[in-house]
């Protein structure tokens, strides 16, 4: 305390100067409109540039949360889009029978996950995500990101899961050219992480370079219509009945961060149906 008092007394002239300077400035800016306006204009310019700089820095800290929010919103919209598409299809089918009320299907749910490990340079690539069985991840769930298909869940732990990447020759994905019903099989040829090969596409399918390749929906893993890539060109093949196309993948596998695992709510039902059908055909075969 004594030191503080000594300090104040020693430098009292500076405190007196500051006091009178502040008083003068207050008088100056409050009573002179010209100085007042310039002061406020300059203060606003300085403040706005400081705030802008501050905002530029702090906005990066919230990007992860914003990204997650956007992903969730995207998932919700995608879910809504799928159900609306189903509804439209039902209306189309039931158009003559206007009394029939179609059921709105809510087949798919999405689980947001962050990629914690990823590879693109190996011949068999896998991705690990930070969500597991506790979060509702199950084997054979499809995984997508904002750009397109990523892979299929392979092994599930409690808090993490391994995904077989689309950049893995073991994964074959049923795809079709958008606005056509003919499908082929997409597989990675171990060459570039930006390209894959669509095999077994019938010869009579009409397409052009740049056409979009989407999932066919002929499995319980991916709903129909998810973007996979665009046609880059034809590839030489020995089979005269089928095309082999080079596909430029829309997903950037080298920059994966947030992905969505697709949960098909009707998967078990479809499996049971398939099993029942398989059992009946066996019985029929036995009788005959």
């Amino acid at each position, binding site marked *: 305390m004594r030191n503080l008092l000594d300090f104040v007394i020693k430098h*009292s*002239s500076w405190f*007196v*100067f500051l006091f*009178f*300077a502040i*008083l*003068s*400035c*207050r*008088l*100056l*800016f*409050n*009573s*002179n409109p*010209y*100085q007042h306006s*310039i*002061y406020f204009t300059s203060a606003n310019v300085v403040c706005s540039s400081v705030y802008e700089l501050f905002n530029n820095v702090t906005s990066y800290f919230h990007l992860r949360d914003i990204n997650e929010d956007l992903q969730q919103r995207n998932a919700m919209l995608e879910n809504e889009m799928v159900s609306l598409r189903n509804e439209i299809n039902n209306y189309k089918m039931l158009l003559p029978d206007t009394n029939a009320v179609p059921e709105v299907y809510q087949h798919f749910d999405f689980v947001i996950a962050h990629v914690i490990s990823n590879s693109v340079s190996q011949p068999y690539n896998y991705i690990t995500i930070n969500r597991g069985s506790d979060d509702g991840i199950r084997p054979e769930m499809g995984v997508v990101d904002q750009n397109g298909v990523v892979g299929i869940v392979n092994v599930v732990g409690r808090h993490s899961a391994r995904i077989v990447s689309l950049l893995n020759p073991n994964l074959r994905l049923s795809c079709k050219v958008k606005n056509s019903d003919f499908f082929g099989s997409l597989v990675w040829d171990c060459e570039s992480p930006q390209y894959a090969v669509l095999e077994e596409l019938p010869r009579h399918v009409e397409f052009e370079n740049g056409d979009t390749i989407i999932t066919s929906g002929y499995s319980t893993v991916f709903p129909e219509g998810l973007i996979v890539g665009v046609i880059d060109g034809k590839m030489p093949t020995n089979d005269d009945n089928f095309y082999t196309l080079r596909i430029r993948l829309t997903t950037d596998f080298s920059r994966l961060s947030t992905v969505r695992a697709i949960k098909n709510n009707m998967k078990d039902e479809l499996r049971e149906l398939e099993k029942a059908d398989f059992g009946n055909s066996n019985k029929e075969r036995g009788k005959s």
Partner: protein
Amino acid sequence: MSKSALQFTGLFIGMLLAQAICNRICLFGVAVPMVFIYFIIRLPMNLSVNWVICLSFFLGLGVDIFGDTQGMNALACTVLAVCRRSVFLLYFPREDDLGNPIPSIRSLGIAVYAKYMVTAVLLYCTVVFLIQAFALKHFEITLLRIISSTILTFLVLLGFDSIATTRREKRL
């Protein structure tokens, strides 16, 4: 002590009134004589800095009230009061050799006193005209006003001082 206090009170009031008149003078549209800072220049060097700042502030405030320029002269006078001692020591480093603590032609000699005065006037004019302009937009005009006002003020103050010195000499 009381006599000099009375003298300085008279100088304070006299300078305020003189400046009230000088505020109406503007030579060639640029040069304004800032005669009232003569009081700050003439304050004794052994007077506490706090007192110098206080007196200068109130002198500036008085001029502001007469000239309707709230705060401008008060701020410039406060700055001049703080820098006054440093300016003085710049030209007269051995303060102990000073016989009379009041800066004047007689105590400092014409050369040192003129340098001390012109620096103080220049400092004051720079601060006050920069506050008036408050922007570097028309800096040439501001610079012209600073230089011309400094020269005019310096000449007027030197005239004041010569008259005061001559009178004292006559009295002797």
